[in-house]
């Protein structure tokens, strides 16, 4: 019943072609533009063919965007610190939700879900004032602190579902045999939940890497602390944008998350969809 005749196959592949073109065209065109010399890009109407493709822009961009290495470092640094702090807060909370029954358990879980729906934009005003009062504007903290808050809810939900998969009998048996809670944590829960922790950690990393714009342009004006997106955004306002270099730099900025994701997409997608599809 899953067999298609030739006619159906052609239609399906055509559909996939159109769909994939929509999804991938921006990336393909970004890459193509990054390989072309600037005077080929600045021809109107658009020239589809260039004969002298090169990685020249990937060398020149470091001169045009002198702070680029710093932006790349900042993006990694911000994403790593943000996801580590998120894990620190989320691990105990998720464990508690997975194992204990207590009043307000379900309602607080739903409140967490609701928080996911508030964009950072609503909270910017008070956060701006607080950060200003404490002298934290234009620092790394200004981007990390709100970043963590918006990763906690989903991370708790995700990690909770991993903890729930660890059979409670194991813990109970150890407890009856006299193991302490700390020992149980170290010898039973920690090893069994490593895959889950990795997935949630990666979720937090990709999430914080992706959210580096709103907080970054609002709370930080200092170039030294800018992550890639806000650093590159500054160049777009210039009258002559060197598009080939800009696209090259953008792709370099995208590459790390894309690579991590491609290697681990199976686990991440399974984790994220299991929550919403099966609940």
């Amino acid at each position: 019943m899953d067999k298609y005749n030739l006619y159906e196959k052609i239609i399906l592949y055509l559909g996939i072609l159109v769909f994939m073109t929509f999804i991938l065209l921006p990336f393909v065109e970004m890459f193509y533009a990054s390989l072309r010399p600037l005077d080929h890009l600045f021809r109107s109407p658009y020239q589809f063919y260039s004969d002298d493709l090169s990685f020249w822009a990937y060398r020149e961009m470091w001169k045009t965007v002198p702070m680029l290495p710093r932006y790349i470092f900042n993006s990694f640094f911000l994403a790593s610190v943000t996801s580590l702090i998120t894990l620190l807060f989320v691990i105990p909370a998720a464990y508690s939700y997975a194992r204990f029954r207590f009043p307000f358990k379900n309602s607080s879980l739903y409140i967490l879900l609701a928080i996911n729906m508030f964009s950072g934009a609503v909270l910017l005003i008070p956060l701006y004032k607080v950060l200003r009062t404490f002298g934290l504007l234009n620092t790394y903290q200004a981007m990390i602190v709100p970043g963590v808050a918006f990763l906690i809810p989903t991370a708790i939900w995700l990690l909770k579902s991993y903890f729930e998969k660890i059979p409670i009998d194991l813990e109970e048996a150890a407890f009856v045999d006299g193991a302490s809670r700390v020992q149980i944590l170290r010898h039973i829960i920690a090893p069994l939940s490593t895959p889950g922790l990795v997935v949630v950690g990666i979720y937090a990393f990709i999430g914080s890497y992706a959210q580096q714009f709103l907080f970054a342009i609002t709370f930080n004006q200092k170039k030294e602390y800018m992550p890639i997106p806000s650093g590159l955004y500054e160049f777009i306002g210039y009258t002559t944008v060197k598009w080939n270099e800009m696209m090259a730099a953008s792709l370099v900025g995208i590459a790390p998350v894309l690579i991590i994701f491609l290697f681990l997409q199976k686990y991440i997608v399974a984790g994220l969809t299991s929550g919403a599809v099966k609940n």
Partner: protein
Amino acid sequence: MKQKLKSYNAQTYLAYALIAPAALYIVLIVAWPLLETIRLSFTNSSLAGEDYVGFENYQKMLSSKKFNGIVTRTFVWMFFSVSLKLIIGLIGAVLLNANLKGRSIFRVLVMPPWVVPIAIGMLGWLWLYNGYFGIIAGVGMRTGILDGPFGFLAYKQSAFISTIIADVWVGTPMVTVFFLAAMQGVPRDLYEAAYCDGASRWDRFFKITLPQITPVIITMSLLSAIWTFNSFEIIWILTEGGPRGATTTLIIDTYKQALGNYKFGRGAARAVVVMILLTLFAGFYLALLARINKKISHE
């Protein structure tokens, strides 16, 4: 032994202690700012200081024609964006669910717009939309649809449509992936039984697949409505809300008032409107989720 186990599983104070750090963090960084926003909306707060002004911000806001236009525009923008995401996402999921060679590769290739930082994706779209040198204008000129360079982001209507398309590009992969996951969860024997009864492919889709994944479709509609409503980076990078306000949605307007002009009070009043609308959405969503969960646990 039972007694001991009971003590292991029913330590409420421990449960709360483990949650406390995360809860405290959320209260400080999310809940308190929400309340503070409400308070600020009744003041004329700016960098200079603040005074209590009652409902003045709200009165000014609600009586301004511009603001009413922004609210309408937000919902129109949202309606088109969400509908397109759902329709394209559903078609995409059907295509990627078909038993074809290479589908596992396509399933991975669909995801990049979802994973990549939105801001960087938008830098790419800025280039695509370039009126003189961009590929879209280029195709338009070469096919004769356009009779010259055309700045897609420079005119009111085309900017409105262009921002929607970019938003659909960002949001579709996630919708597709969730629909696909739901389709794969439909029990196979349902299809086999229908196939034996001679149901056509079309029938099987409309009478089995679609009803089976309806809960996910509804959930995704609400979720993507919420995310679309919140969409900031896409519009900000492409048009900053322009030209002449044509793409200024509520979120963009809130941001401009608050942090473009440092009129915190006025910005806060807009943020409160956003909050109220989001609370309504979230309420719908949670009520729905509770109902779906109940149904599942009954079955």
